[in-house]
């Protein structure tokens, strides 16, 4: 059984997707989705614990050995990503039950959960697979289902946002497939490990350079690296609450993982960061992303959109860590993958509670809610503090390693900028907190009551995780450290 965990990880959500669509009852369809996400979560935990024992898991799917068959290959890096995706899935799916019933037409709900499970399956698949073309396939599965999920948002603008995301996402996916194709032409293999072995001999080839460029741009589109982020704010703003929380916490993270995999494992640090000096390109992009997107976030009226811009800024922090190409920098980046999923997940879920009760997430709608929905608002505040990076929250842990990484490189202005921009997070978070606790309630907020338990419990589960992994970061830092060393090619 446990030998087949890698297959279970993917196949169960895939089957659940089909079942969800087949049953006509919306609650049953939710039940199937929930069962699927729980299974995936435990599979991810199982895989991570095996990887932490120092094992690199190799699994030949369907018994066909690589390089002819598809190989799943799991080390500390993707085990962590699997845990993030599956963990967020298992928390957000219970939240979706009531939230989706409120925001979606009843007949569409089985379809929603079908797409939901497909998206989960796709994201997990990207992370688990050791085959370049398989990455593309799962990327398309997750992206197509994500377009559908976003388009189901109750606002009519959701449709346009989803379409825009579809165009941008497809451009990104085509770039990726071109890059993979070129690599196949050059090396004759699609297996990531084989690619990593054969590419060093071809480092001078122009085709490899072009493949690298296509892959970098394509993945950067997917992970919304500034200035390729334009699809993200609208998509996050108009998607159903549960979808925003899920995608914000997972989709961009998985894309970052793909980037890490290609930069470090496939092409190798020597090629990406020494020969091509990628750090020189990534660093300014990351800094501009952090600075401008935090600034833009300050001026948003819609809180969901504000958090969306903040997400682009936070991706900047992750890419900044990557650009150092050092153990500390990569530890910071992988840590922030995990930590940012926790904080953004919590914040978007809290907004989902507001959407459920008040029907709007504009800052005006949140005024005076501190007294009406004390638990939800306390969760938002706590999540906000984590985003700012107050000590004893996960945000602080990320920031600590990021600043340490920058200082190690002697880039003290960068370190200073990281800290200065987190004071910008103080501004945009505190605007909302002030409205929540000091504003005069709007008529709709006046009659609002606390969100139901089925929404509050998932929200608070993530808040508790924010605090727990902030007070005891031993586990997360050791996994992230191991991941960083794996990526840089040292012993795990």
């Amino acid at each position: 059984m446990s030998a087949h965990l890698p297959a279970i990880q993917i196949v169960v959500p895939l089957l659940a997707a089909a079942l969800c669509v087949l049953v006509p009852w919306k609650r049953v369809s939710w039940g199937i989705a929930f069962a699927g996400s729980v299974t995936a979560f435990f599979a991810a935990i199982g895989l991570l614990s095996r990887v932490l024992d120092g094992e690199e898991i190799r699994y030949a799917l369907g018994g066909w050995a690589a390089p002819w068959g598809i190989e799943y290959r799991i080390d500390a890096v993707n085990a962590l990503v699997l845990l993030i995706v599956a963990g967020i899935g298992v928390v957000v799916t219970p939240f979706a039950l009531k939230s989706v019933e409120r925001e979606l037409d009843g007949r569409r709900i089985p379809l929603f959960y079908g797409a939901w499970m497909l998206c989960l399956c796709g994201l997990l698949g990207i992370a688990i697979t050791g085959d370049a073309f398989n990455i593309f396939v799962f990327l398309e599965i997750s992206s197509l289902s994500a377009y559908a999920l976003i388009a189901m948002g109750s606002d009519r603008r959701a449709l346009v946002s989803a379409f825009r995301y579809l165009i941008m996402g497809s451009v990104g996916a085509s770039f990726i497939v071109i890059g993979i194709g070129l690599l196949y032409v050059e090396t004759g293999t699609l297996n990531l490990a084989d690619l990593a072995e054969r590419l060093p001999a071809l480092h001078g080839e122009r085709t490899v350079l072009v493949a690298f460029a296509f892959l970098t741009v394509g993945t950067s589109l997917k992970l919304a690296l500034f200035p390729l982020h334009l699809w993200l704010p609208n998509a996050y703003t108009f998607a159903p609450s549960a979808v925003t929380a899920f995608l914000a916490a997972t989709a961009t993270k998985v894309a970052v993982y793909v980037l890490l995999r290609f930069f470090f494992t496939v092409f190798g640090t020597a090629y990406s960061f020494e020969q091509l000096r990628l750090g020189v390109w990534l660093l300014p992009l990351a800094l501009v992303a952090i600075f401008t997107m935090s600034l833009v976030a300050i001026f948003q009226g819609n809180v969901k959109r504000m958090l969306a811009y903040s997400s682009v800024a936070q991706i900047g922090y992750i890419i900044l860590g990557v650009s150092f190409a050092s153990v500390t920098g990569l530890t910071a980046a992988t840590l922030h993958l995990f930590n940012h999923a926790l904080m953004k997940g919590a914040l978007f879920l809290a907004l989902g509670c507001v959407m459920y009760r008040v029907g709007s997430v504009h800052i005006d709608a949140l005024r005076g809610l501190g007294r009406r929905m004390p638990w939800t608002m306390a969760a938002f505040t706590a999540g906000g503090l984590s985003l700012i990076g107050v000590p004893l929250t996960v945000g602080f842990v990320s920031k600590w390693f990021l600043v340490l990484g920058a200082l190690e490189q002697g880039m003290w202005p960068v370190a200073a900028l990281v800290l200065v921009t987190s004071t910008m997070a103080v501004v945009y978070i505190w605007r909302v907190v002030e409205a929540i606790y000091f504003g005069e309630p709007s008529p709709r907020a006046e009659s609002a009551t606390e969100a139901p338990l089925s929404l509050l419990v998932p929200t608070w589960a993530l808040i508790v995780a924010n605090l727990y992994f902030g007070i005891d970061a031993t586990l997360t830092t050791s996994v992230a450290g191991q991941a960083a060393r794996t990526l840089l090619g040292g012993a795990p």
Partner: protein
Amino acid sequence: MNAGELALLALIIPAVGAGLVGLLRAQPNLREAASLVTGGVLLGVVMRIHRAVAAGEIPRLVLAEPLPGIPLELEVEPLGMIFALVAGSLWIVTTLYAIGYMRGHHEKNQTRFYIFFALAISCTMGVAFAGNLFTLFVFYEALTLSTFPLVTHAGTDAAKRAGRVYLGILLSTSIAFQLFAIIWTYLLTGTIDFEMGGILEGRAGEGVVAVLLALYVFGIGKAAVMPFHRWLPAAMVAPTPVSALLHAVAVVKAGVFSILKITIYVFGIDFLTQLGASVWLMWVAAATIILASLVAFRKDNLKARLAYSTISQLSYVVLGAMLANTMGIIGGGMHIVMHAFGKITLFFCAGAIMVAAHKTEISDMRGLGRTMPVTCAAFFVGTLSIIGLPPAGGTWSKWFLGLGALDAGQVGLVAVLMVSSLLSIGYLMIVPVRAFFSPASNPHGHGHANGGIHEAPLPSLIAIVITSLCCLALFVYPDPFFQLISMVAGP
């Protein structure tokens, strides 16, 4: 229970008190009793810890280890003991005062007020007992956040604006400068522990030390060194007990205490003197002392004037730290105590005048000595202590600071101390003098100027008398504090 666990208990007790206050919200009398009892228990615990520390023990306790090698750790060294003693003993007095004030002033949301007040004290104890730079930073930030609801207690637009300034300055300086300095220190030394004699010697060059020191001094915004002082006058919109305990004692002293502690245990005073990295910061502190006094002159609102006086006095402690010699450290440490007792008395009086006579502007307080003789006499005693005149405790700290300046060969700074004392006579002494010797400004207005005595509510009055007597007692008997500070200041 060993002293390390007692230190943890000192953090837990106020938090439990906050819980009790929340539970008893329906019965105000029981609720206040809970506050008082918590204060009493806390003081008892702090006294017990003091006994251990005075005997030369340094209790330690590791609470958690958030990052490998970076524990959340409590450690009670003599300097922290001083701060804890001051905050612990003044908390119970302030609670007594607050009972009279909050009821006399008909404040709303009193339960919320007492809860966050207790939480703030818990954080203060955490600052006092912080065992390394990380722990200090944790409780420093927690103190900022827990006092925010107290500053904005009134919920008005003015309070909201003040809250923004308060949080903006304190959070951004601490994240942008202080955290930066902490991580840098960690990178240079591989440790964040406090060690006698400092951890930086031999690990950082002169230039880096100078930059680090500046990052710490300005990054600890709670010390209100100019130009990062604006939050303190802004915080005066809070109810007076908050201004008294938090913005004359706990919060601001957490700032100067942190600077003093970092100077001694991270940089090491010998190392600093040797490098001379702190000389220009001495003059920044001196400038703050003089400028804030001058601004205080121009404030007619009593609380605002006291706030600027506090900014000026805080820089005495910063100055003592930057002098980086034995006398300077003793002076700075003693001034934490002396200024705390003096300034809290003055704030208590300001609040009493507001509640009993409904006056906030100094120009309206002529002749007030006839209706509020006890309050005005206490104000006089507090003023003596702030100026540094016998028979009040403030004499000692000024004395040692002056000696420290001479030892450092900075005669100019002695002049600054003198001028500042003269200035504080001008802007503070005028208040009790006018109250006793001027005719009442507005005998027909609101109030009881017709000879009748009308003091603040009794609990508040008792608190005022206690703190002003303490000011006098500290002149005669400063020994407990003196012994503690001598333990860290070296020979």
